[in-house]
């Protein structure tokens, strides 16, 4: 649709005018890292962030989400979508969001996710500071960048705002933004065209080859070796923008018969994840670490490829950084398998 120009010093007032319309969720600093949080003070906006601890999926699919409330045996849905702007989403996360959009709408549409998703306006942002573990430049390349409503690109003296949907256009219509000049637009295009080159880590294998080789390694002993230090902590699952597994639990309230049912993010690396009762007994279908570790890599590189049109990994590098034992990095693991 249309391109606008925001001077460097105009960014905060741009964000401020968005905040006047609805809550703005954007990257802010937290300790040595960044998180997406509702902006309280526009000065805290950090578009120069490398990556966030948790991916922005949390905005639509909160780590803990109430599904229903009940009292005296009657259940009611807890859907309560709140319109907001999700500002500063990096391209790899936009890709991941379009993956979760698909996963939550396929077969049975899950309104607990989709209702939140539909009311959000997503403004993407180019990566100004690549995360040291990121490899988005060499994975899920074929996947089209869709799902966002507008995109901010940092150029030498400001930002170019590309508005790509009507939702986006509606949001900024009355902000009086200046149109971007042809030079500004082409500078932004240049920035985005070479974005992948700046990505610090490279995965030097084609997705199809990886998928095939990883599948074929199903019975290899390499998984035992790779997972030896694994804590089954599931951090690699939880920080992943394309992971979406969950657990459901009921919780009583303090009244006589009230309570709620909620879901929380779950991960296939935890040992309770694959426990089942069979014939009344208890069994675990992925009892040891190696099986669980393998399942994750199968999911990331092979199982979902057909459905998603790309591997279920966008190369954000979050899992690599989150794993205390440093064994979750897809680049390292895939390389080991490809070379085995």
């Amino acid at each position, binding site marked *: 649709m249309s391109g606008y120009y925001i001077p460097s010093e105009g960014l905060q007032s741009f964000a401020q005018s968005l905040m006047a319309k609805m809550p703005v969720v954007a990257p802010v600093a937290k300790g040595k890292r960044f998180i997406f949080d509702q902006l309280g003070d526009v000065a805290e906006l950090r578009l120069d962030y490398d990556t966030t601890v948790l991916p922005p999926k949390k905005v639509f699919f909160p780590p803990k989400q109430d*599904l229903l409330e009940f009292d005296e045996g009657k259940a009611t849905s807890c859907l309560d979508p709140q319109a907001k702007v999700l500002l500063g989403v990096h391209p790899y996360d936009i890709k991941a969001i379009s993956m979760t959009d698909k996963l939550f709408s396929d077969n*049975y549409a*899950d309104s607990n996710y989709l209702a939140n998703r539909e009311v959000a306006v997503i403004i993407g942002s180019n990566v100004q500071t690549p995360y040291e573990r990121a490899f988005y430049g060499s994975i899920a390349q074929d996947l089209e960048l869709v799902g966002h409503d507008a995109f901010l690109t940092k150029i030498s003296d400001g930002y170019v705002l590309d508005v790509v949907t009507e939702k986006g256009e509606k949001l900024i219509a009355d902000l009086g933004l200046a149109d971007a000049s042809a030079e500004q637009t082409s500078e932004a295009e240049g920035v985005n065209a070479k974005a992948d080159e700046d990505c610090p880590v490279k995965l030097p294998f084609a997705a199809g080859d990886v998928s095939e080789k990883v599948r074929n390694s199903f019975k290899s002993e390499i998984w035992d070796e790779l997972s030896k230090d694994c804590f089954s902590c599931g951090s690699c699952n939880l920080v992943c923008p394309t992971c979406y597994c969950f657990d459901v639990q*009921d919780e009583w309230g303090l009244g006589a018969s009230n309570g709620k049912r909620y879901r929380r993010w*779950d991960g296939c690396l935890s040992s309770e994840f694959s426990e089942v009762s069979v*014939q009344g007994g208890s069994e675990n279908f992925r009892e040891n670490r190696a099986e669980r570790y393998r399942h994750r890599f199968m999911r990331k590189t092979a199982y979902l490829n057909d459905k998603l049109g790309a591997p279920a990994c966008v190369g954000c590098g979050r899992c690599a950084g989150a794993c205390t034992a440093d064994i979750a990095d897809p680049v390292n693991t895939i390389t080991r398998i490809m070379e085995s």
Partner: protein
Amino acid sequence: MCDGNNNVGQDGNILLPKEVEVVEAKKVTASETHFVLKMKNGDAMDYKPGQIVEAGVLGYGEVPLGFASSPTQTEKTGTFDLVVREVGKVTKALVSLQPGDTMTMRGPLGNGFPVEEFEGNDVLIVAGGIGLCPTRSMIKYILDKRDDFKKFTLFFGSRTPAEQLFVEDLDVWRGAEDVDYKEIVDNADENWKGKVGVITQLFKELDELNPETKVIICGPPIMYKFVIAELKGFDVPDENIFVDLERRMKCGVGKCGHCQINDKYVCMDGPVFRFSEIKDLEEAI
């Protein structure tokens, strides 16, 4: 697959269950209760044999359970059956429900047995223990539409005579002409006059088995391997063998990830699988 209309609750919330009334609740063994149920608000329960539901009690949770009745019964009476074995938190809350109480339900879910493919063929059903519940749905269906199927053989094994489910059905099947029914128990008691041993022994009594027979296996995981080995002896191809799998399920609609076996979601792609589809999936059986 049935269309999802039955499934979607208020606000289009797929995870919001509907209310079901307990019509009958009968304790059939020390740990199993047989429920006869009816949808509230006049909704219909439109399912196929082998499909499942997420049944629950508010405040305790939901669990996947297979239909134990045939849709042919439901068409007539408007009721359907579930059998619940008490093993833990949710199942305990379920078995404590009494006639008139409310159970919550989402479903039908899953694929069920490919009934059309079975029509016009010989059918063998091998059920172990509580595996008789989901298969009862198919057994009843076949018996209700007996002319649509050729030879029908049914093997049922349980640990002890006391643990036998559906004793009234068993009585009928034992005497019935249109089903070749064979049963066995692992451990007999003083009143048991039948066979004692593992379920695979029943194959020894079969003179022949048409390799075109469609076979359903449902029981404890350990049973699958041995039954399939017997079927190999009769040259039954893997394409003709159907297994019913159990996994932990939280959503039942292909989202939560708990039931995933390699590429497959048991709740969406199953719980019924053609053996040829999953025999190479290491984690499946």
